[in-house]
């Protein structure tokens, strides 16, 4: 019981140990250091851009986007070339008098 009371007293004393705390101050010439940091930040804008692009999430997203665009382009191209295969240009055949002779045409016998 005594021990519990002691602990409670310690806890209470610790909780009020921040009373009367004085504001801490940074070291001297703080503004000079801030200015130097600001100048450095302004000079490094291209480094910041490239480090932003190099971030894994950004880089992976950009690569995935490029791959997706390539896939769409390939699929579109395939679709377009299939379209040409299914619908041959009839005017080509007429102009060059091209007849599509099949094997079976030669087998047709006159009645």
């Amino acid at each position, binding site marked *: 019981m005594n021990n519990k009371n002691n602990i409670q007293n310690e*806890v209470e004393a*610790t*909780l009020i*140990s921040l009373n009367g705390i004085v*504001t801490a*101050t940074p070291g001297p010439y703080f*503004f000079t250091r801030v200015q130097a*940091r*600001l100048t450095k930040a302004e000079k490094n804008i291209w480094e910041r851009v490239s480090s932003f692009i190099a971030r894994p999430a950004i880089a992976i997203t950009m690569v995935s986007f490029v791959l997706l665009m390539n896939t769409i382009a390939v699929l579109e191209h395939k679709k377009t070339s299939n379209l040409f295969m299914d619908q041959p240009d009839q005017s080509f055949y007429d102009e060059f008098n091209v007849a599509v002779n099949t094997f079976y045409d030669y087998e047709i016998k006159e009645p």
Partner: protein
Amino acid sequence: MSEWILIKQLKQKDEAAFKTVVETWQDMVFNTVLGIVQNPEDAEDVSQEVFVQVYESVNSFKGESKFSTWLYRIAITKAMDHIRKKKRKKRFAFVQSLFGVDNEVLHDPPDFHHPGISLDNKERAAVLFMAIDKLPENQKIAFNLHKIEALSYQEVSMVMKLSLSSVESLLHRAKNNLKQTLEDYYQNYD
């Protein structure tokens, strides 16, 4: 110089105005950050970042709140980002050590002694800061703003963009958590 004129000049990237802003608010920013990161070198570093951020993004300050409220928000955000970054590095170093990579011994940082605490309270305050460090993020922020920055509940609610009742609840839970941590500490200490 009136605050509004100062901010207007700062938006025009006037160096003298920026110097005035830094000199006026550097102690407030440093003290807030120090209470959260609990390391003077890191606090100095983060405080510099805060003012660089202020300079770069002052045009986004619309005057809907006080300038000091806006400053507190930036300071807290930067301080919390710093802590999260440090924790991530620690976790990554731990994972590396599991794989036998770079077996660097990780030292626990020494007790934090706030320079603004009187000598007779220094040891107790160090224990309290250890307990504060274990609080969940929002409770830690609210406790720091109220106890170390001496902001009222209303001012804390404006900085944290929370309702007054939420701030009261946060501080109540923070106090209970601190009591629990301190009880455990003093039981084991004996």
